[in-house]
């Protein structure tokens, strides 16, 4: 049971990191469906840099403390370069452009012999759950901090109204490029950690379904505040498991069916959330209400 929960928390950590990487562009109004591409870049770069030159398919043999940051920089550099053409597109066209980017990355990696081609490759050094958890907390804290800075304000103003943001002196283009690039770096970090935790990377695992889910975490969690991706990732990581446990607890025929149909139930929940809370679960209004309640409760408790 303990192992099962730890396994789930590992997935949660990775999903959370991916989600924040997609959240940053989303908070400035850009939909990035290319998460799988940046995960692939981060994971393969880290694995190749870390692998000793003597083994198959071979690498540079750098220690993990170097391979992970280098993989992050690599993902950021690619993100920066492709942001120039991609940010010319908008809305659904941007979704398609980022999706296409991820497909190109996947297609390239599967054909590159020096990273193991279709067979994938091992990532030798291991990051344990504690390390993963610490880095995840750092990523969440970093994004939370970023949103509270002047740059965060610029990002959100661009999301609301580009022309007025420009008027008051925001460099819209630079803001969007920066958000996309930092996001790419964070998703790449997630990929590198994935590789070093599971010690094996395989491009087929980083497919468009993963990109879709990550974008869903962000959109359904809410893009207005830095809490959204965390809530979204947690919610969607736990829901299928919760339904499974629920099925076991109910037991009998119905319980079995519930487990079998859990992805259907999951889909229904997603549709319901889109209808009921189109702005995402965590909105500014919700936070305002929660904090007002707490403020009211505090003097009452003091009496």
């Amino acid at each position, binding site marked *: 049971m303990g192992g099962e929960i730890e396994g789930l928390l590992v997935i949660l950590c990775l999903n959370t990191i991916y989600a924040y990487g997609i959240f940053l562009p989303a908070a400035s109004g850009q939909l990035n469906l290319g998460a799988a591409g940046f995960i692939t870049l981060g994971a393969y770069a880290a694995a190749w840099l870390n692998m000793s030159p003597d083994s198959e398919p071979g690498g540079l043999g750098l220690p993990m403390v170097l391979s992970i940051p280098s993989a992050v920089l690599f993902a950021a550099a690619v993100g920066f370069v492709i942001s120039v053409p991609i940010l010319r597109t908008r809305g659904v066209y941007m979704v398609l452009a980022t999706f296409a980017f991820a497909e190109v990355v996947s297609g390239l990696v599967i054909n590159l012999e020096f990273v193991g081609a279709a067979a994938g490759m091992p990532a030798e050094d291991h990051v344990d759950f504690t390390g993963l958890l610490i880095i995840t907390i750092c990523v969440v804290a970093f994004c939370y901090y970023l949103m509270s800075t*002047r740059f965060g*304000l*610029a990002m*959100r*103003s661009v*999301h*609301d*109204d580009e*022309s*007025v*943001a*420009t*008027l*008051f*002196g*925001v460099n819209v283009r630079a803001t969007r490029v920066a958000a996309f690039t930092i996001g790419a770096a964070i998703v790449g970090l997630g990929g590198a950690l994935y590789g070093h935790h599971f010690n094996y990377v395989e491009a087929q695992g980083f497919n468009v379904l993963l990109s879709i889910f990550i974008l869903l975490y962000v959109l359904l969690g809410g893009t*207005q505040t830095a809490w959204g991706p965390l809530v979204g990732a947690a919610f969607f990581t736990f829901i299928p498991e919760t339904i499974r446990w629920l099925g076991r607890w109910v037991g009998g025929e119905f319980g079995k069916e519930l487990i079998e149909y859990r992805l259907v139930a999951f889909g229904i929940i997603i549709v319901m959330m889109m209808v009921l809370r189109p702005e995402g679960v965590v*909105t*500014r*209004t919700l936070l*305002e209400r929660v*904090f007002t309640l707490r403020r009211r409760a505090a003097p009452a408790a003091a009496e």
Partner: protein
Amino acid sequence: MLLEVSGLDVRYGRNHAVKSMDLTIGEGEVVTVLGANGAGKSSLLKAIQGTVKPSGGRVRLGGRDVTGWSAPRRVRDGLVLVPEGRQIFVSLTVHENLQMGAYSRREPVEAEISDIYERFPNLAQRRDMPASVLSGGEQQMLAIGRALLAKPKLMMLDEPSLGLSPILVQQLFQLIDQLNRDGLAILLVEQNTFMALQSAHRAYVLELGETVLQGTPEQLAEEEKKLEAAYLGAS
């Protein structure tokens, strides 16, 4: 002269929206530009602000030629537009909207934001709420407050009374008078001719991109019939 527009032309393709317009605003003056829909009022404001490129003519601000300047640079130099339909940042809080007004200023502005809250107590109450929860009148106050934080010498308002109840319109024009008494020059584009002429020192009447009448409200009153004809679009 604070603002001097000479021979300004704005074209959208074959549509000649503003034709060789001349307009001046002195320090501390309230000037209104009146006209029916499609008379070229908004195009004129956009060209003065720099969000639309004029095809001819000059814009001078405080004696300097700013025709080639970008819109943000003009804002930094004291020229700010309160756009039609307010265009506040809906997912930002009231406070963040005000901070956005001072985005390109490097000095601390908290004291000035407090002044805005004193002027508009409704905004102070909703300080940390997303601006989307504000009523139309409050949104207009926020848009004006945000513009004030850019420390303007000249504030341009595009149809500020649009969609406001008569009482709010009254308050809005009181506010405009008040801001003017504090030394702010104002360029007001309005369809509410009656209210605009009460606040303005001078007025321009546009018809199909051309000035057909100009002068003090008293002078315009003498030509009221012409004004009516222009405003209603009859010729």
